[in-house]
């Protein structure tokens, strides 16, 4: 059977626009949250977000590093983030220069939950105010979800599968799981996989606020607003950014002497069949996804040392926790489970990929990142190590990442050291 390993990582996050900076800031309990600066949010119910910081910031993002000026002008920010994270991952894997035969077997599957909402908003207003003749000729292909995959393929000459997952907030995890299967199924030897999002725009923030999904009670305390499992949690804080990994067939990676971070050993998917935004009250879908991922990995719950929870800082946190308790039983007390959304916010379609990268780094460094703001753990959290406030050194042999999305879609990934 073909095995799939991870040989490259790329991150653009509110805590840093490269893997090591974001990871270091995460481990030192920094928060990426603040007042919205991208637009005037004074009339919004939610006025805070975890924005990717501008170039001149201590850990800001410089789009000029890897994305052509012309492309930057034509596409939405989620595509710019995705191209950059993909470039980082290829550089990390030592795969920026591949011969044609290798590129024929190298593909891209980088998705997004929503896609180019800021551009859709701007061009809609433009159409309304100035007419159809003023709509940008780059409007469509600058907003489409599969255009990270398209742009990356063109930039690096990757001629293998070109795909994009769209499963709301589980996009990033599904992307990695599906792309790993493409390698297993011999469609490719190398896949760039992940997710990106950027909807910190008036329509995006208003839409999630109207759906009562965002925190709207802590506009004056942005760094405290994302507080998974805490009694005072009151909705998620929107994040933005991208996470991309290089997936590679094990023998292929070994033959070229690549650095191998981890192996993708289990992938579970399920549907809640319940409600468009609310999770199943008993967490059936989450439970099924976790069980399937463990079964595919051929592992017992007790083999997992760290769970990166979906944990969005909503009422759903304790539903996921209850599902984990049913899957893991007593073994959950031996694992650590944290939500890094407490620090970087909810990256929506990017979340599952970014958080999988944090899982991989936890494996590498034998340390688990914290759940910030967990001052008063809610009922149902007893007996679970949710890694409150500070990172924790511990043994990490295998990790599980959960990602769930609107529509009742669930994905779980299991990765382990090789």
């Amino acid at each position, binding site marked *: 059977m073909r095995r799939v390993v991870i040989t490259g990582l790329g991150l653009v996050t509110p805590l840093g626009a490269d893997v090591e900076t974001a990871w270091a800031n995460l481990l030192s309990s920094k928060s990426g949250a603040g007042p919205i600066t991208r637009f005037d949010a004074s009339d919004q119910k939610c006025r805070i977000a975890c924005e990717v910081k501008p170039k001149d910031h201590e850990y800001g993002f410089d789009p000029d590093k890897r994305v*052509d*000026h*012309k492309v930057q*002008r034509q596409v939405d920010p989620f595509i710019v983030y995705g191209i950059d994270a993909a470039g980082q991952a290829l550089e990390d894997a030592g795969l920026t220069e591949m011969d044609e035969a290798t590129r024929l077997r190298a593909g891209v599957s980088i998705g997004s939950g929503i896609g180019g909402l800021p551009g859709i908003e701007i061009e809609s207003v433009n159409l309304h105010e100035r007419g159809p*003749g*003023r709509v*940008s*000729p*780059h409007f469509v292909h600058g907003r489409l979800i599969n255009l990270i995959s398209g742009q990356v393929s063109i930039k690096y000459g990757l001629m293998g599968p070109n795909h994009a997952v769209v499963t709301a907030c589980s996009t990033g995890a599904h992307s990695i799981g599906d792309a790993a299967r493409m390698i297993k199924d011999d469609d490719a030897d190398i896949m760039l996989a992940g997710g990106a999002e950027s909807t910190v725009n008036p329509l995006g923030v208003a839409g999630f606020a109207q759906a009562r999904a965002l925190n709207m009670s802590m506009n004056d305390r942005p760094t405290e607003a994302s507080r998974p499992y805490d009694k005072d949690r009151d909705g998620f804080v929107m994040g933005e950014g991208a996470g991309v990994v290089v997936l590679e067939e094990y023998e292929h990676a070994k033959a070229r002497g690549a650095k191998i971070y981890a192996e993708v050993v289990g992938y579970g998917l399920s549907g809640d069949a319940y409600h468009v935004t609310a999770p199943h009250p008993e967490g059936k879908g989450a439970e099924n996804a976790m069980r399937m991922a463990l079964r595919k990995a051929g592992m017992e719950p007790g083999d997992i040392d760290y769970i990166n929870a979906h944990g969005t800082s909503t009422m759903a946190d304790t539903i996921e926790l209850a599902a984990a308790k049913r899957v893991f039983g007593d073994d959950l007390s031996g694992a650590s489970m944290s939500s890094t959304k407490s620090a970087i916010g909810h990256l929506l379609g990017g979340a599952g990929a970014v958080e999988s990268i944090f899982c991989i780094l936890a494996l590498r460094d034998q340390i688990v990142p914290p759940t910030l703001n967990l001052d008063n753990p809610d009922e149902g959290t007893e007996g679970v190590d949710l890694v409150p406030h500070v990172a924790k050194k511990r043994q990490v042999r295998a990790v599980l990442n959960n990602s769930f999305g609107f529509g009742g879609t669930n994905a779980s990934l299991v990765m382990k050291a090789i």
Partner: protein
Amino acid sequence: MSETADRVKKIVVEHLGVEADKVTEDASFIDDLGADSLDIVELVMAFEEEFGVEIPDDAAEKITTVKDAITYIDEHKG
């Protein structure tokens, strides 16, 4: 250099992300400046905006160099 030429070149540099010294009057948008057909649609829109002229599609198709653009604009601006 005419004022029109200055403003046209500025738009081309901004939209195509090319070095200013490459934007000579003889430069072809596609052959010399790396534009594709959609970039030209966008450039024409930017020229219309900047100079308050209307450039119909059949005229736009004939604008292939920087000089073509400058000439058209000089002949048609109010």
